[in-house]
């Protein structure tokens, strides 16, 4: 399938050209918050005032694309947690008010499919609408869903994407589980930290994908997801994945890898990188933080790279001076869920 348009809201200023003009945000601390555009011309104020962040950034990234493409056959979203902040507010209300009268807004905003639902209602799209929540591979499942719809002839153009928000509630829960660093660290030092945990990030990346090459930015060739692999299998897995797509390790000129600065899991990326000694390596979690569907941002970055955008130096982990034509994205979430995404220039 082909990517014909894309949009991203992230902790970098990616909703306009600032990021590729070299305006890269640096952070200190354990949370990277999204920089949001003005929604004044996009979302009616009556709706905006009720929206939680996940819904807001999802609509903010998806609706501009739908407005440009009137013939969208369906909407598919990948989000591990959806509007978790509203969910926890709603649960707290149940306790605080002893299961009495509760406000509907938090509940409506909290369900993960609220993002796809709002997008459909606001654009009057009555087609296929699905939300995948498979934590670290929710975005990969979204891609697979789109591939299947195209293969079955059920759609010819779709809006797909990922959304993840962070919030104080969310951060506290995941921090207890040891997901984040306990020391303060700057984004420039993230990969040298050699400590447990990563940085809490958030964002939404949306794509219009089509089964036709016309006006394509790039081709999204294939996706593969797997869970709890043995570390020594990673090269074998990537070789099989590429062979399936009539490619070899040598054909990959660029890698986009999910290095997160967590010394428990970064070896996965180092191991894979060693199989591609002549490839340029891009990183992104030093720019947007770690979250379950961050491979959505990686796909947005890879799409932009394939369209010839000059990537800021902070996104380049290792420069092999290759012209990007075939990009492999590899991401895993907490070492448990892994995904490959393969993109080609058109």
């Amino acid at each position, binding site marked *: 399938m082909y990517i014909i348009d894309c949009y991203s809201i992230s902790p970098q200023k990616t909703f306009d050209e600032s990021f590729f003009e070299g305006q890269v945000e640096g952070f200190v601390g354990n949370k990277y918050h999204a920089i949001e555009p003005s929604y004044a011309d996009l979302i009616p*104020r*009556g709706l905006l*005032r*009720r929206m939680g962040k996940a819904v807001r950034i999802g609509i903010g990234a998806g609706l501009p694309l739908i407005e440009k493409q009137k013939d969208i056959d369906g909407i598919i979203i990948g989000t591990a947690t959806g509007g978790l902040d509203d969910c926890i507010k709603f649960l707290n209300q149940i306790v605080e*008010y002893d299961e*009495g*009268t509760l*406000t*509907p807004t938090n509940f*409506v905003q909290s369900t993960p499919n609220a993002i796809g639902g709002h997008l459909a209602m606001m654009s009057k799209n009555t087609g296929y609408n699905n939300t995948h929540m498979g934590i670290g591979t929710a975005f990969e499942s979204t891609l697979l869903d789109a591939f299947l719809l195209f293969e079955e002839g059920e759609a010819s153009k779709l809006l797909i994407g990922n959304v993840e928000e962070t919030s104080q509630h969310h951060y506290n829960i995941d921090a207890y589980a040891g997901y984040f660093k306990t020391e303060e660290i700057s984004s420039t030092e993230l990969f040298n930290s050699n400590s447990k945990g990563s940085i809490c990030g958030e964002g939404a990346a949306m794509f219009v994908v089509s089964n036709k090459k016309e006006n394509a930015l790039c081709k999204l060739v294939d996706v593969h997801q797997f869970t709890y692999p043995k570390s020594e299998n990673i090269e074998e897995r990537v070789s099989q994945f590429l062979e399936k797509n009539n490619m070899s390790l040598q054909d990959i000129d660029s890698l986009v890898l999910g290095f997160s600065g967590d010394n428990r899991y970064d070896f996965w990326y180092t191991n894979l990188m060693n199989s591609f000694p002549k490839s340029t390596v891009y990183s992104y979690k030093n720019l947007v933080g770690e979250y379950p569907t961050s491979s959505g941002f990686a796909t947005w970055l890879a799409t932009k790279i394939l369209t010839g955008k000059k990537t800021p130096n902070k996104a380049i982990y290792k420069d092999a001076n290759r012209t990007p034509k075939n990009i492999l994205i590899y991401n895993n979430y907490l070492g448990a869920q892994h995904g490959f995404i393969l993109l080609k220039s058109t």
Partner: protein
Amino acid sequence: MEAVALKAKLKTQIIQYLNLLDITPEDIKDDTPLFGEELGLDSIDSIELIVLLEREYGIKITNPTEGRKVLVDVEQMAAYILEHSENLK
């Protein structure tokens, strides 16, 4: 509580409960229709206002006809609260 003070407090609570962006208590007159074009409230907001009355003033509105008479403007809401709220007595 006096009616004037109650109405001022109510305006602040309405803004807070409904997250009314860019609206200050001064923008809401005592007789500004809650469900007119000025404030732009809708049916979900009416439920939020019913929850406000219950949580802040201990008043339960279970009859929709009664709700329509109360949720007209700040003047009507304040009058109803003064008449029915045990919290203020």
